């Protein structure tokens, strides 16, 4: 049933939240409609193509987000998306995003971080962040395959001396030797692509304790 366009205020703050090429359109409800059961309909557009396309799973939905990862999976292209609010026979005008370019704008998620220790050393194992995939059983693609110059900034804090230092690495294993025994070290890592200013997402802080040194009490002269 066609609705009266412009009868409602438009949704606001419509943007793509993109992390590792998982591209989710999100918006805020129209202002001034608290308590009103508003639904939303989404369309998207591939820059350079001819027509706006429907996203069937996001027709008359209650939520204020819509996963368009499938529709925007070719990250070398650019896209627009738009959403309108509907309530009974009224609907808003379309609220439209700016042009979205996944290759440049997606945020690089943190790598997976695994730590092992012995008395005086710690090994940090990094697994590159994974690109979004359509189905869980699809083969994985690492973000490193898309950004071959992906690097990692590893930050290490010695909680005994409360000293923090960082190291920039490209490989996936970092072994720190000559650490203090029986000491807790906390680590977080962020992946980044040199040259392109984009927000990064550090990994959760992880802490491990080096083992006690069985041969002696470690004493600093």
């Amino acid at each position: 049933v066609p609705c009266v366009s412009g009868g409602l205020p438009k949704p606001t703050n419509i943007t793509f939240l993109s992390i590792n090429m998982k591209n989710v359109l999100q918006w805020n409800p129209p202002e001034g409609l608290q308590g009103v059961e508003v639904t939303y309909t989404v369309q998207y557009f591939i820059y350079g193509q001819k027509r706006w396309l429907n996203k069937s799973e996001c027709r008359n939905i209650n939520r204020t987000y819509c996963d368009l990862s499938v529709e925007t999976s070719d990250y070398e292209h650019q896209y627009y998306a738009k959403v309108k609010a509907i309530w009974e026979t009224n609907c808003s005008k379309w609220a439209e995003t700016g042009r979205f370019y996944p290759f440049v704008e997606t945020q690089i998620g943190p790598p997976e971080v695994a730590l092992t220790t012995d008395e005086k050393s710690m090994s940090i194992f990094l697994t590159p962040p994974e690109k979004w995939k359509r189905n869980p059983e699809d083969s994985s693609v690492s973000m490193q395959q898309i950004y071959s110059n992906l690097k990692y900034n590893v930050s290490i804090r010695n909680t005994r001396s409360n000293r923090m230092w960082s190291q920039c690495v490209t490989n996936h294993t970092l072994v720190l030797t000559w650490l203090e025994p029986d000491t807790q070290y906390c680590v977080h890592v962020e992946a980044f692509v040199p040259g392109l200013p984009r927000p990064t997402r550090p990994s959760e802080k992880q802490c491990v304790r080096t083992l006690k040194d069985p041969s002696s009490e470690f004493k600093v002269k």
Partner: protein
Amino acid sequence: DGVAILPAPQNLSVHSTNMKHFLMWSPVIVPGETVYYSVEYQGEYERLYLSDVWIPSSWCSLTEKTECDLTEDITATVPYSLHVRATLGSQTSAWSTLTHPFNRNSTILTPPWMDVTKDGFHLVIELEDLGPQFEFLVAYWRRESATKEHIKMVRSGGIPVHLVTMEPGAAYCVKAQAVVKAIGRHSAFSQAECIEVQEEALPL
């Protein structure tokens, strides 16, 4: 029509250090009055292709100061023409133009400040935060084998960076120079700093 009665500013010069560029000039003195100044710039592109176009500087339109920070305006390694004029009420002076266009590749690069410390056996360096265009070439060596110098590129200042895991009982020395790829130049090395490492703890 009050256009050129006001004298144009004189003695224009550029002072540029560590990629921070300032245009300076002598004040136009009108007793009992405040004179304002406006600065415009023209990159080589504008001079070659859009010669009528001069661009108002980011920070210096009708400013009372007799200097202008052009760091955010001079952002390419090409010659920039610069001019400044004075304004007093409805009176506006002629433009006064810098004699020679300024290219940021002439900036003075100073040896970077650095803080060399250790965390147990780990040599850590923190370098001066000079901005996103700066990287640092850090050289370090064991004092007793000064010939064997190791090099490490440090991408940014302002954060402590791990240099090397040191051998117990040794002394290590470090020096650093600032590198600006955008202009293909680097500073002199800083004064070397050395640090001693404790012996490994002996069993009780």
